[in-house]
């Protein structure tokens, strides 16, 4: 059996900034943009693995860009080259590259840049307007900055690019399709804006996960078609299908 569960070692763990790290692992990986892996670098505690999006697959390596939040990501941040890591994936539906047609916007908020980087790489040949918001110093923008003709950056403290939230500098009306990944609140606003403008928007949801493969039903999102599993039916959903409220 060609298992999607791999026990391997870290190639490199790069500290990107105070609380952002980029872990890379060597191997012959193939996946769709927007898919994720369950990462684990511990035996029993914490009990669950951590879902992290594919940040890039390139040059015989897969990389994950992540931010230290709690127990799991703190352990991940301390890994060094050669340390053991277990990864399970690729998981989830991912972004549909065929939908990247016409006038396209990609929108990231904070760590939302992680999956959009790999998505961007997969459709780099097309024309895309990239919008990225950060609290302060941007990160993970190398590829986009180098290749994308239209990049808008906003920082909450105004230290780089425009000041404030990136969504305040974004107008969906100009686009045929929008792809977005960021904090839930941001995505809720983007969905609303796009709905009003009649523009389809695909968002990547971040729900807590246990199995990551559709077996436990803890990661559901409310949709107009009933509860759907973020880990298998998602994490990418068409915004207009989601029922967004404080419960999703």
């Amino acid at each position, binding site marked *: *059996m060609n*298992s*999607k*569960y791999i026990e391997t070692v870290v190639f490199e763990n790069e500290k990107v900034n105070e609380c952002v790290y980029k872990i890379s692992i060597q191997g012959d990986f193939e996946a769709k943009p927007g898919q994720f892996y369950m990462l684990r670098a511990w035996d*029993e*505690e*914490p*009990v*669950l*693995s951590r879902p992290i999006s594919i940040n890039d697959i390139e040059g015989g390596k897969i990389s994950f860009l992540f931010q230290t939040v709690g127990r799991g990501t703190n352990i991940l941040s301390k890994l060094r080259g050669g340390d053991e890591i*277990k990864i*399970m994936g690729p998981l989830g539906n991912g972004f549909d590259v065929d939908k990247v047609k016409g006038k396209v916007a990609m929108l990231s908020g904070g760590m939302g840049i992680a999956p959009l980087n790999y998505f961007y790489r997969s459709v780099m040949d097309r024309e895309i307007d990239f919008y990225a918001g950060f609290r302060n110093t941007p990160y993970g923008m190398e590829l986009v900055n180098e290749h994308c003709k239209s990049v808008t950056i906003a920082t909450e403290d105004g230290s780089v690019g425009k000041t404030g939230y990136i969504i305040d500098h974004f107008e969906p009306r100009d686009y045929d399709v929008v792809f977005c990944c960021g904090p839930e609140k941001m995505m809720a606003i983007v969905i609303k804006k796009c709905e009003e403008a009649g523009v389809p928007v695909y968002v990547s949801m971040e729900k*807590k*996960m*246990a*199995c*990551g*493969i*559709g*077996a*436990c*039903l*803890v*990661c*559901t999102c*409310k949709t107009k078609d*009933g*509860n759907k599993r973020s880990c298998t039916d998602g994490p990418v959903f068409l915004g207009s299908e989601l029922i967004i409220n404080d*419960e999703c």
Partner: protein
Amino acid sequence: MMNVNICSVELKNPVIAASGTFGFGQEYADYFDVSRLGGISSKGLTFVPRQGNDWERMHEVKGGMMNSVGLQNPGVKEFIKSELEGMRNTGAAVIANLGGSTVEDYIKGAKLLDNADVDIIELNISCPNVKEGGMAFGIKSCVANDVVRQVRAAVKKPLMVKLSPNAQDIVEMALACEEAGADSISLVNTFKGMAIDIRTKKPVFKNLFAGVSGPAIKPMALRMVYEVCKAVKVPVVGMGGISSAEDAIEFIMAGAHAVQIGTANFIKPDICVDIIDGIESFMKQEGIKRIEDMRGII
């Protein structure tokens, strides 16, 4: 050597994937040969389809997790129509886990399953995540006795009754279910727990309480399984926090005929295989010929 017999159903080994953690048996097929399993217990079914609970459904805790899925499921009919064949094709014994809010629902669901191609009906009288029901049956033994008796009368298939660790008296509960006609007892379901988000100053779960599972509950689960095994004559299926072959062997030595593996599937997708292989190699090392030779040995 590894085979066991529970309510006249032969399992190729005593390791069963626990309800609610293994979907309908297909999801793990990318990770291991699911036919290795002794059995699979389906996601909890109800007669009427359920969307499950809103809001937060999961919260990780030390040594385990809390869930409040609330029996999201397509309903027994749809299960039989769309999921059962796939589950059967796994090659593992098929256990249909049945929840309910009313005795009538239990009976209606059980009757449908009785005519379907399932090996065992596991009556879940213990789900703590459904406000109107399930749990209500799992606390007081007289209530449990009644529902088990009525379902028993309605079906011919082997009936396994799954107990809640939140029962007032687990031994009394097991005896009441046995007396009512259960062919087997499985335990434990999740422990009733709570978590508070100190920043929002609100409970994490909309239902306030949620079910705790995983390694954290093992010592309590093992104790309850031991006590129940001492008390009842029907075969007992033990579970609660099992995450290694050693854990599984403890439950068997406490008297269990078989074990179920729940939360541990999230630790490692093919952990059931590790557990099966681990039990087998322990038996070889110790010169134990059959599972029953170590069952209840302590």
